[in-house]
């Protein structure tokens, strides 16, 4: 009961009955996707979905707690590579992928904790954090890029330099291998689960503290909160969610390269989150899915104008909906809507 209350809290979009009916309809449509889409389209949909945990983590970190990170893809890469190394070495057993997944997540948590400890317990100023995380990412990319040689072999797995790590095994429990539709359902259920957990967390007291920290670090600290500890906490959480996306990515494509950790992929999650509306989880999730879909659709058409169209889209969205287009749509006064404007937490720190 209390959990239900938290799910329906005010820190995310949608609390009305109609909202939940719509939400259920969308989930149902996603579950029924195999009925009207080919396996290939399902595989594409899995790709759009698997980016969502990363974006949700960034949303919590940035939208709710006010810490912008350009380095989420570093954890994406760390988890992907760790999974590749562990699962690739445990091909004899059927639980290799499971161990690899757990190992990847733990490594993300550990690296995130160490990096976060230095940043937050060193009280690095807020606006420096994005650049610091970006430099960390570039460092990781430079390192991974030169691992082409044979000496960069961990057990049976070659790191592979810029050509990337190939032959990463798909996810597997027992003898069941998650591929095609099965992987789609796996990604879908994980994404939905992550969304609900995030939503509950942000509606719970933890979320309130996140917002308090974003609104005013000093005030929060002088109410007795160890701000550094909470910042570190949400940073590690976001790192693990980015890691989860990384895991799903390598299980989806069986492949990862250092360019996944480069400057361009580093900026993308920030764009998804900003376009959706960074302090609304659902908006972020929807924007992530849609932007990935648009980008794919444009490139599929082989259209050279794709980046121009994408750029113009971002420009217009930001000009007319600076708080995020999904949030703006959600907060429109629909004619049929009873006028209960929920107290929305706006941003002043923007």
């Amino acid at each position: 009961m209390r959990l239900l209350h938290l799910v329906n809290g005010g820190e995310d979009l949608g609390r009305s009955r109609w909202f939940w009916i719509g939400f259920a309809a969308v989930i149902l449509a996603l579950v029924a996707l195999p009925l009207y889409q080919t396996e290939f389209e399902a595989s594409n949909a899995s790709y759009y979905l698997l980016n969502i945990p990363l974006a949700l983590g960034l949303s919590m970190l940035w939208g709710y707690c006010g810490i912008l990170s350009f380095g989420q893809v570093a954890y994406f890469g760390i988890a992907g590579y760790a999974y590749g190394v562990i699962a690739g070495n445990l091909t004899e057993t059927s639980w290799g992928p499971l161990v690899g997944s757990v190992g990847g997540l733990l490594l993300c948590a550990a690296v995130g904790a160490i990096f976060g400890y230095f940043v937050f317990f060193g009280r690095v100023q807020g606006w420096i954090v994005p650049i610091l995380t970006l430099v960390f990412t570039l460092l990781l990319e430079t390192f991974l890029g030169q691992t082409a040689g044979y000496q960069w072999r961990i057990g049976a797995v070659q790191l592979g330099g810029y050509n990337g790590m190939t032959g990463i095994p798909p996810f597997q429990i027992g003898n069941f291998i998650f591929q095609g539709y099965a992987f789609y359902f796996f990604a879908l259920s994980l994404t939905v689960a992550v969304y609900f957990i995030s939503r509950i967390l942000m509606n719970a007291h933890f979320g309130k503290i996140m917002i308090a920290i974003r609104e005013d670090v000093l005030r929060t600290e002088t109410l007795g909160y160890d701000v550094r500890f909470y910042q570190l906490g949400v940073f590690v959480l976001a790192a693990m969610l980015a890691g989860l996306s990384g895991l799903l990515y390598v299980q989806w494509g069986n492949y990862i390269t250092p360019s996944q950790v480069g400057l361009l992929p580093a900026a993308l999650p920030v764009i998804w989150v900003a376009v959706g509306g960074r302090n609304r989880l659902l908006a972020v999730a929807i924007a992530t899915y849609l932007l990935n879909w648009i980008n794919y659709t444009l490139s599929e058409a082989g259209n050279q104008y794709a980046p121009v169209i994408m750029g113009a889209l971002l420009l217009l969205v930001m000009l007319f909906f600076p708080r995020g287009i999904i949030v703006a749509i959600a907060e429109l006064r629909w004619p049929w809507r009873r006028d209960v404007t929920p107290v929305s937490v706006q941003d002043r720190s923007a």
Partner: protein
Amino acid sequence: MKMQPAISTVNLTKRFGGVIATDGVDLSVSSGEIRCIIGPNGAGKSTLFALLCGIHAPDGGEILLGGRDVTRLPAFRRVRLGLGLTFQTNRAYHNLTIAQNLEIARRRNSARVDSDALRRYQHAIGLFELDQLTDLPARALPHHQLQWLEIAMVLAGGPDVILLDEPTAGMSPEETMQTASVLRTLNGMGLTIVVVEHDIAFVREIAHRVTVLHEGRIFAEGSVAEITAHEDVRNIYLGRA
């Protein structure tokens, strides 16, 4: 009543570059006292306040809270030891509701709030007329009530000593008097209050004792009457102000 001072400093010193902002300050506030710290602009009030909060670390000297050395402790630890703080500019969470503001303030320290503190808090909520407004976003409050909200938030943590930096800045005379009366009431319920203040009328209204800072040092200390009678204080502070 020779008790342990509620909050005190020994030879507290802070430099910024070549400028000495606080120069060997020995301050001692007894339990149950309302102490006002005054001084002209640049006297070192803000620095002293920041040192007491834990925003800045001193270059020398000690800060004692209830007899315990807190000089090197970060702000949140001092708060957990019973210090409450408000700032010159209002720092309530403007975008959260009043209930959420108070909730955030209360949750962290709920374990250490004793019955006295709880009574003070509930009393303050009533006096500040905040009890009816819980679902309103804080930014909708008029200025003086925002200030009050912040004091209430501080009380929610159940402090023994509160440190207020110009709590009545921007209030009308009536609101100032109302604030003074609430603070006196709370003081009557056992709360030690230290106020850094500009407004002499307000100081007259509440202070048991007044400390005058000048050029980073304690220039004079005494009752309101003593201080207002003090010739040099008039010169440096009232005279020039």
